[in-house]
């Protein structure tokens, strides 16, 4: 048994195959962006939520928490924290506000960020907005 295995054919498959799948990816991504509006809760994307997202990023919350399962695995998942806290933004704000400055001895501790009330509102609204995104009802249960 013998077979030809030429480098040029292998190279053609590399270029042809990659280009083919890049085009398929571009097509699917284009379709996804068209299909997103009914899923990504953009109607509730207010300026306050955008401000909340900026606060979320500028305080590196993703350094301990996961959001929609992505981030650090040190602290609870926050995509459904709004539901977990009984659909009540005040509870979220109270929790963030009441973090002790030098932490709880012996426990994983969340820093005290000294947010103003307006910042707390923005963060809570952001977490509410994220919880209403249609993410194929993930996480499996309220615990996240």
């Amino acid at each position, binding site marked *: 048994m013998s077979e030809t295995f*030429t*480098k040029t054919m*292998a*190279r053609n*498959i*590399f270029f042809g*195959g*990659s280009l*083919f799948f*890049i085009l*398929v*990816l571009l097509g*699917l*991504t284009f379709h*996804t962006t068209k*299909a*997103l509006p009914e*899923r*990504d809760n953009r109607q509730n*994307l207010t300026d306050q939520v*955008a401000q909340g*997202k*900026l606060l979320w*990023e*500028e*305080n*590196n*919350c*993703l*350094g*301990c928490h*996961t*959001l*929609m399962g*992505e*981030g*650090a*695995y*040190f*602290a*609870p*998942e926050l995509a459904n924290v709004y539901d977990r806290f009984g659909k009540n933004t005040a509870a979220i704000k109270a929790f963030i506000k009441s973090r002790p400055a*030098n*932490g*709880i001895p*012996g*426990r*994983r*501790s969340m*820093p005290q960020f000294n947010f103003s009330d307006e910042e707390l509102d923005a963060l809570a609204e952001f977490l509410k*907005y994220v919880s209403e*995104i*249609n*993410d*194929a009802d993930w*996480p*499996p*249960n*309220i*615990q996240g």
Partner: protein
Amino acid sequence: MKFQSQSVAMPYFIAAIGLFVGQILFGLIMGLQYVMGDFLFPEIPFNVARMVHTNLLIVWVLFGFMGASYYLIPEESQTELFSPKLAIAMFWIFLVAGALTIVGYLAVPYATLAELTGNKLLPTMGREFLEQPTITKIGIVIVALAFIFNVGMTVLKGRKTAISMVLMIGLVGLAVLFLFSFYNPHNIVLDKMFWWWVVHLWVEGVWELILGAILAFVLIKITGVDREVIEKWLYMIVAMALITGILGMGHHYFWIGTPEYWQLIGSVFSALEPIPFFMMTLFAFNMINQRRREHPNKAAALWAMGCGVMAFLGAGVWGFLHTLSPVNYYTHGSQVTAAHGHMAFYGAYAMVVMCMISYSMPLMRGRIANSRQAQVVEMWGFWLMTVSMVFITLFLTGAGILQVWLQRFSDAPQSFMAVQDQIAIFYWLRELAGVFFLIGLGVYIWSFFVEGEEVTVDNTAAPAAA
């Protein structure tokens, strides 16, 4: 070392190993924080230690890739590097920018760092692996462009081989895809979607090209097998890598709000993603079995084979473990993900950089291979690091499975923190394995300083490989 300008790679490799040590130290801090929650709190909270750990990892692997390219391209193109001075200048800029960013993470709270660096003008901070301030990101882009210009000009004026072509495609892909880190829309779903274009299309796309090219180069040099055979394999491996990897990105689009057809596409194509890593293991072992010469650098051969195997285990097997959407529904964002991340990154990218270092460092120090004693110490370092990484992954997988069972799969799911307390035993064991990893790294670094009778004459029985 055929060309003088290849020695530019030396500082890059030294910086890479230095940052590697930093990464492991902060890894150990985090490992301890998992079990002693308030360790170093509030001085170094967990999120800061994590940023330093992940950013040091990416920066030291990038240093390794750049060093490998500066060593490989001149030898492949059979011409001197276009501008060694530019390479050294970029080295210092990248090192200083990196160091400043790490100091920024540690010295001031992250929000203040965002304030100082004017994040509001173009907010790109705060996302995993992309926490660098916007100005640092711009610095990275400049360094990357200068680097690609430097190696690109070298390839243009020299011989064009499949290895340098694949490496260049990988490097250009790396630079272009990094630009997506500047796209940070208010819409969190779009933000995450294109964040994966940086992260996934790097580590499961273009980085596999760089990995393949470096591995092929080292295998040509240490086995003497004909370039034609090795380049055929290289093309097949990178073809499979991109064919499966590009749509394989779908396995990140399961639960972030994107339409549900991604669950089908992502599962099917990411299930095929282990194929290129399996081919890479076959490739490494096949070439070494059919070697035409006994290269005195045994350590580099061990690294090459180890890289193939560990990449297949970590990225292939552990990846497949939780890539199918029905499984991922439960393991998404759990310690199973962390286990896969550790072994995949070490097996594929950390090991290939160390394989290149192990092959090229002796040559840059004026010898064909290190002394027998030095190679034995290096192999001890290899086995200590690799075995402890296997244990880290096993312990995290145990933690992940228990976490999924208690927190998600059972009909009376417990809260996150309650579950974390019950799986603390795995975190203790993982921390222990991490300490052994640091010991292994220490032994590896020590191997560079072991005296002994180096091999200086090339014993190539067969004609030296082209």
